[in-house]
């Protein structure tokens, strides 16, 4: 299935990161246009795909993960230890027929993303 999905995981605690706001944008005429803001569910995923299959288009897309608020709301986190700063992932959909799963793994001081499946 084509489209874009994400998954937010808290690798510090070894569990999905629930309640993280994700801003999903597309590059249009050199500017990032917000398509939607969603919040991760209990499984760290979004209830619906960020970009459903019937809207899949080639282009440059952006995910902004608002993990700062998530970490601050998490019990036992020292704000001084938060190094990553609301990470932004920019990626190209180069073939609209493919699916792009873009997971992110985070801890207060580390961030990882990749093309998943």
């Amino acid at each position, binding site marked *: 299935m084509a489209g874009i999905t994400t998954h937010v995981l808290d690798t510090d605690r070894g569990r999905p990161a629930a309640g993280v706001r994700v801003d999903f944008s597309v590059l249009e005429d050199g500017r990032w246009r917000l398509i939607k803001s969603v919040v991760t569910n209990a499984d760290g995923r979004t209830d619906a795909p960020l970009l459903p299959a019937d809207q899949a288009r080639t282009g*440059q897309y952006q995910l902004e993960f608002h993990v700062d608020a998530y970490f601050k709301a998490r019990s036992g986190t020292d704000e*001084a230890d*938060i190094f990553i700063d609301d990470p932004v992932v*920019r*990626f*190209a959909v*180069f073939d609209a027929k493919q699916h792009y799963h873009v997971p992110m793994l985070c801890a207060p001081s*580390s*961030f990882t993303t*990749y093309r998943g499946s």
Partner: protein
Amino acid sequence: MDHAADRYVLTRRSLVATGLGAAASAGTALAQGVPAPTGSPAKPGTLTTAPVSQSGLSPRLTMHAIDNFHGTPGAGMVCDLAMLDGDGYRPIKTVTTAPNGRTAEPLLVDDAFKTGRYELVMHVEDYFATFGVKLPSPNFLGRVPIRFRIRDAGQRYHLPVLFTPWGYSYYRGS
């Protein structure tokens, strides 16, 4: 036929013709005192150096680009450093990594090392193009923004970035 060897020959040619020299001149490598990476080995930044310990050095921001596709330092990576100022990021400098994947000088040190919210944009697609890696066009990753905070200018901050054409990882190192 040894396809791998064939590819390295092509890579060496492309390096001599345009590759890392162009990357270095695009940045401020000369101004930074980074050795011009002409005559580089066929593979990017062949690993001949031992790890570097920065323990005990004064507060500063340093980085290390590591190419997990080739298993080498990320040499010749163009990186734009900027600081959040109001609604946008204000450019500070553009640097190019040396053959060991580090910058010749700290990204920030002394009076320039301030608390704040920073962004380091790494030219990942250009980097792999320089080494002749065949990728989709545009590639999944183009220019990769790395966002982080310096919360205490009395501490030393090291920013390692591990990257491939399909993903990356960064963390507060040491």
